[in-house]
């Protein structure tokens, strides 16, 4: 009974994660400029990664594998904002101007 519930829960996590991954990739292809694409990539790097690794953790149960998956998750969550920030900062220094909606001009 409990094992069945865990399987269903992990399948749900994996499915939602896969959907969010595809959405993020569609956003990376679809959005008009570099800075907006970063937001789409952010979706795949936070919630989608968490959900996929959570689904795998539920499959693994209480073992050393869950600990390793948790380490991978923590590592991705810590490094992805650092990489994003390095990327935006390099783009700013490279004189890449962000596309700004006319209604929001200050």
């Amino acid at each position: 009974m409990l094992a069945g519930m865990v399987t269903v829960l992990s399948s749900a996590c994996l499915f939602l994660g896969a959907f969010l991954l595809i959405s993020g990739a569609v956003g990376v292809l679809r959005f008009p400029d570099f800075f907006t694409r970063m937001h789409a990539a952010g979706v795949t790097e936070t919630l989608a990664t968490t959900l996929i690794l959570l689904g795998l953790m539920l499959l693994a149960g209480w073992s050393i594998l869950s600990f390793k998956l948790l380490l991978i998750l923590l590592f991705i969550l810590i490094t992805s904002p650092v990489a994003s920030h390095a990327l935006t900062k390099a783009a700013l220094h490279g004189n890449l101007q962000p596309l700004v909606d006319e209604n929001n001009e200050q």
Partner: protein
Amino acid sequence: MLVASAVAILVVMVMAIVRALLGPTIYDRILAVNLFGTKTVLLIAVIGFLFGRPDFLDIALVYALINFISIVGVLRYFEYSRSDEEGGRL
């Protein structure tokens, strides 16, 4: 469901490669390569479970480390070695 998510991750990786090829700026390409790298980590983890080879998780962990360091290294290189007139088009 493991197979489905492995296929979804592969589709996402193909889309990342398309964005890396389309560009248009160097930063779009680096963003796409970063996306490709983090999805590779997930793919290795999922495939480890799919084929019953949990040792693959160690490889995924090491790949995450190498991916982060290589992205930061490439960014450092492009931040200081490119003339400003190009506006990032490469």
